């Protein structure tokens, strides 16, 4: 089967890409602005084609724990939700991280706190990149900025999840979830029939029983496990940092933005260059691990960095940590579902340049 070109919503692209990536199961609960994922999967009914299980759970809590159970069987399983629902899932996510299980979690972010709004926001950055639930852990976080990346990051996310036996989050937002763009879909992959050696699939005589747990009552062993997790996160920082640069070669000032904000900044960048301002853009694609090294290098030769986010200023803290005082860093953001315009972003860059 050939690659296929379609016009799709970001949410639909995620659902279709999950089927094509050979996912074994999706467990979800409706919430705006991401319900199309569950709707699309129910309509596509992959149980009858690839054998993928799709289930509407009684709550986000149940859904993430279904993911836990499925992941513990070594299956390619996923869930999706939006901010308030992701908060509910945090319990399950920390157990999954603590049990070192692979899975994919999609957050199509909306404004908060609380019930907030249903419009796009990027205010879950801290929650996504710093752990989210209790205990010392990280998710590997991918931030798509187009419908194409919504599709591509499903397979990439599963691959990384299994490579590191770690939950992976696609951190998107309502704008990318709801908008339609062209998307090239990969051919259908067969679901894997491999039985993973650590998975709970029934104990044959040939191996000891497999136990999936995040519990260890012995503090010394638990600390050893914590060190093991840290080593895994360092390895991700070595191997998995992904980012994209626009016009940074001769840039004096750099926008740092991910997801929808990066798209706005691309436009703001064009406008800036048209006015003779030497601006550039760095778009982190992985938010954990963060492109710290690259930002630190760029800090040696630029006059400043402006983090643009649809939040009160969350990712900007990672920019500051990355450059470690080498250059000026500031933040511009809108909140509550408001999306800044490229002109507005440019005006803020101009006043940042003025100092």
């Amino acid at each position, binding site marked *: 089967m050939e690659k296929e*070109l379609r*016009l799709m919503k970001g949410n639909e692209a995620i659902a279709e890409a999950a089927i094509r990536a050979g996912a074994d199961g999706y467990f979800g609960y409706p919430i*705006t*602005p991401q319900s199309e994922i569950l709707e699309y999967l129910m309509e596509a009914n992959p149980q009858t084609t690839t054998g993928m299980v799709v289930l509407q759970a009684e709550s986000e809590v149940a859904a993430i724990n279904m993911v836990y159970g499925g992941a513990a069987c070594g299956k390619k399983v996923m869930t999706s939700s939006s901010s308030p629902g992701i908060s509910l899932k945090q319990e399950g996510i920390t157990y999954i991280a603590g049990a070192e299980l692979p899975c994919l979690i999609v957050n199509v972010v909306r404004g908060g706190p609380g019930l907030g709004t*249903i*419009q796009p926001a990027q205010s879950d950055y801290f929650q996504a990149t710093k752990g989210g639930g209790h205990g010392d852990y990280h998710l590997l976080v991918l931030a798509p900025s187009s419908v194409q990346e919504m599709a591509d990051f499903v397979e990439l996310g599963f691959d990384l999840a299994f490579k590191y036996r770690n939950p992976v989050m696609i951190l998107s937002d*309502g*704008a990318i979830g*709801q*908008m*339609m*763009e*062209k998307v090239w879909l990969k051919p259908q992959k067969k679901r894997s029939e491999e039985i993973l050696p650590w998975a709970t699939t029934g104990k044959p005589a040939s191996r000891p029983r497999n136990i999936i747990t995040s519990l260890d009552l012995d503090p010394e062993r638990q600390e050893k496990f914590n060190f093991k997790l840290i080593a895994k996160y360092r390895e991700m920082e070595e191997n998995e940092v992904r980012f994209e640069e626009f016009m940074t070669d001769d840039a004096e000032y750099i926008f740092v933005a991910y997801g*929808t904000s990066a*798209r*706005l900044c*691309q*436009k*703001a*960048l*064009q406008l800036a260059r048209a006015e003779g301002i030497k601006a550039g853009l760095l778009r982190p694609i992985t938010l954990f691990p963060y492109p710290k090294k690259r930002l630190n290098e760029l800090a040696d030769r630029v006059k400043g960095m402006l983090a643009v986010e649809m939040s009160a200023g969350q990712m900007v803290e990672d920019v500051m940590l990355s450059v470690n005082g080498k250059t000026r860093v500031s933040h511009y953001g809108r909140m509550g579902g408001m*999306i800044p*315009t*490229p*002109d507005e972003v440019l005006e803020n860059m101009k006043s940042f340049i003025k100092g």
Partner: protein
Amino acid sequence: MTEEIVIAGFGGQGVLSMGKIMAYSGMMQDMEVSWMPSYGPEMRGGTANVNVILSDERISSPILRSFDTAIILNQQSLDKFEHAVKPGGMLIYDGNGITRHPERKDITVYRIDAAEEASKLKMQKVFNMFVLGGFMKVKPILKTEYVIKGLKKSLPERYHSLIPMNEDAIKRGMELIRLKSECIG
């Protein structure tokens, strides 16, 4: 070429689907396209709008505040978007139910009485295709054959029998559109 468009009106007027058909057609013509709806409670009845971008280049921001073309189907949307048209840009509006008409002099304003015509011809179902036809006449970026292909792609098979009616509506829309300055009343 980059054409940044907003389509706005009441929910149920086919605002989102008109945008979708434009995006499909653009895709068939090998353009880069994006379709960004307003979503949420307003989708369920109140006003609806969608940003559509058709371009020869990679599209940067899919979310816009100023537009080359605004296609306006009710008074609230006219009040909201008349000022969002770039100087030198274009505004197309349906005169039905409009009490305060567009006033800007630095843009080209077209009027299309599509609602009235659709109701006269008992073709209310494809009202938005009259409007699309008008747009295609005054901004010839999208070719009819690709719009028809786009319709085939975007409509479920069971509605394919309605495609000829859509095509008629597009043709009629092309005849119907007028410069506002040439309209009486």
